[in-house]
């Protein structure tokens, strides 16, 4: 059962620099929420704060709360590793593990997080590849290296890898920006399929993509250089693109800046 995320008063710091200020929003379950905004407005920063990936960066810290169905993922008793198994992430550039085959790539999340280290992940691998719409294309060459696929296929492989561990929420950081239009279409259709099972948050530069794919849209912007990014507006996609309430949102959507 996909879960919802409740963010309240989120501030993200890189060292002493406040990158994102006071973000409060709710991510609906079984829906796609898009984070849009101009470059440098903090959308990726907010996304990474949702599964504690910012902790990988030296000097990054967070204040505020992020609740996953009521549980604060930043509670000191909860290790980051457990959070990331429930909230998965797909990056912008497809990055399959180069020393592993396609099968091993999809199974990596399962194999390397299971203390018992069982073998025989075949069913889970097939299920994930089918859900990622990649099974038919790779079922005969599961032993080939993960890097032998095309860009779009590699990204679907990364998505299969991410969903193999059965997360509740899937975070996607501009998943199509490195891909050609045909692959982009395939991934967008995949996202629409996936939301039946998972909660999806997607950061995108491409407004038309946000309009096509998402149910809810959040618009972020930054006042200027050195200022923190802020959430300006969050609403249903149809409404934000036709009748935005804030002037800044309207300016961005109509292309006056960004």
């Amino acid at each position, binding site marked *: 059962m996909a879960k919802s995320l409740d963010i309240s008063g989120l501030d993200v710091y890189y060292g002493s620099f406040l990158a994102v200020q006071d973000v409060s929003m709710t991510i609906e379950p079984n829906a796609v929420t898009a984070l849009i905004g101009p470059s440098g407005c903090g959308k990726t920063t907010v996304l990474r704060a949702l599964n504690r990936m910012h902790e990988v960066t030296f000097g990054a810290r967070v204040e505020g709360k992020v609740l996953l169905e009521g549980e604060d993922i930043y509670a000191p008793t909860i290790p980051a590793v457990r959070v990331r*198994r429930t909230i998965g992430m797909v990056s912008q550039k497809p990055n399959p593990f180069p020393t592993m085959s396609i099968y091993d790539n999809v199974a990596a*999340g399962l194999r*390397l997080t299971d203390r018992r280290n069982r073998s025989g992940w075949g069913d889970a691998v097939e299920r994930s590849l089918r859900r990622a719409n990649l099974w038919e294309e790779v079922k005969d060459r599961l032993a080939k290296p993960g890097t032998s696929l095309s860009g779009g296929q590699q990204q679907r492989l990364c998505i299969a890898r991410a969903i193999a561990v059965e997360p509740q929420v899937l975070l996607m950081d501009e998943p199509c920006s490195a891909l050609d239009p045909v692959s982009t279409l395939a991934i967008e259709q995949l996202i629409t399929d996936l939301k039946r099972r998972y909660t999806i948050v997607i950061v995108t530069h491409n407004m038309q993509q946000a309009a096509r794919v998402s149910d809810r849209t959040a618009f972020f912007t930054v006042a200027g250089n050195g200022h923190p990014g802020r959430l300006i507006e969050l609403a249903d996609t149809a409404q934000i693109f036709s009748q935005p309430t804030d002037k800044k949102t309207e300016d961005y959507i109509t292309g006056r800046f960004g």
Partner: protein
Amino acid sequence: MALLGRPSRHPPALADGLTARCLPRYALPVTAAAVPVAVLGLFAVTGLQGVAGFVVVSALLFAAAQTALSYLVEGRRSAVDRLCTALLCLAFAAAALPLLLIVGYTVRQGLKVVDLQFLTHSMFRINPEKVGGGVYHAIVGTLVQALLAAAMATPVGVLVAIYLAEYGGRRRFARLVSFVVDVMAGVPSVVAGLFIFTAWILVLGFQKSGFAGAMALFVVMLPVVIRSADEMLRLVPDELREAAYALGIPRWRTILQVVLPAALGGIVTGVMLGVARIAGETAPLLLLVSLNQRIEFNPFAGQTDPRPQETLPTLIFEQFGVAAGNAESPPFQRAWGAALVLIVLIGLLNLVARFVARFARVRG
């Protein structure tokens, strides 16, 4: 030098169009033929002698002549270009010449002595001042000690490199460790040998042995392995680590099963190059390992019965001493033979390292 017929920016006199004058194709070969003749004449007139002098003067004269010709025909920019190219080639020749001479001379002298008997027999019961015997015992000693040192240096070195690349970051302790590794890399091998001699033999009371030599080689090899493993680990892109973290894979497993395999080819190459380097180290072995004419496979054997291990560098040293300056004597020839074997051994190790690197890269 593919300098012939390249068009240059033309001198101001030909300001229209793009083509410029350039030296005709025959110009440089003709100059190259004319210069030695001129220099021969010069030598005959002035009474200078010597092959080396002839070569140097010819090369310099050729460089000057081609620059002057180029300046007259093609213009200043081309002339400067040709001059710099000529100087670079001369510099390369000056750098490559000693290497070629060493290898050539070693091969020539060594081949007089190296044959199957030389490679498969030791010096047991052979009078070193007479012809006969071989270096098999020394080959065994070199390989055993170098591989033993590598077996000790590789795990320690890789673990330190993992600390520096994955956990250390900008912390003060990591910077201290990095500094110490750099200093260790500069420590002369004889000092490493002296340290092991004091610690192992004087203080702890063990005897000279192949193992003591291997420990000194370990000290020399460790910084090499750490440096190259550190570089290779840092070359693994962060995106891979992030992909693993995003799946909820804990850090130690990420390093062990994602990062390390990705860097493995380079690490193996670094280790093999380290082994190639220590295979020829002489000074610490002279301090720590006694000479021996018999084959000895056990590096832990001490000075008394059974006897310690001879290695190729120490054998060269020993035979040189016996020869006492007589370049035609059998021990001197034997030293050359051992030198050839050592160079070939190191060359083979380097080749294997390159092969492993290429194989790992193609697969990944």
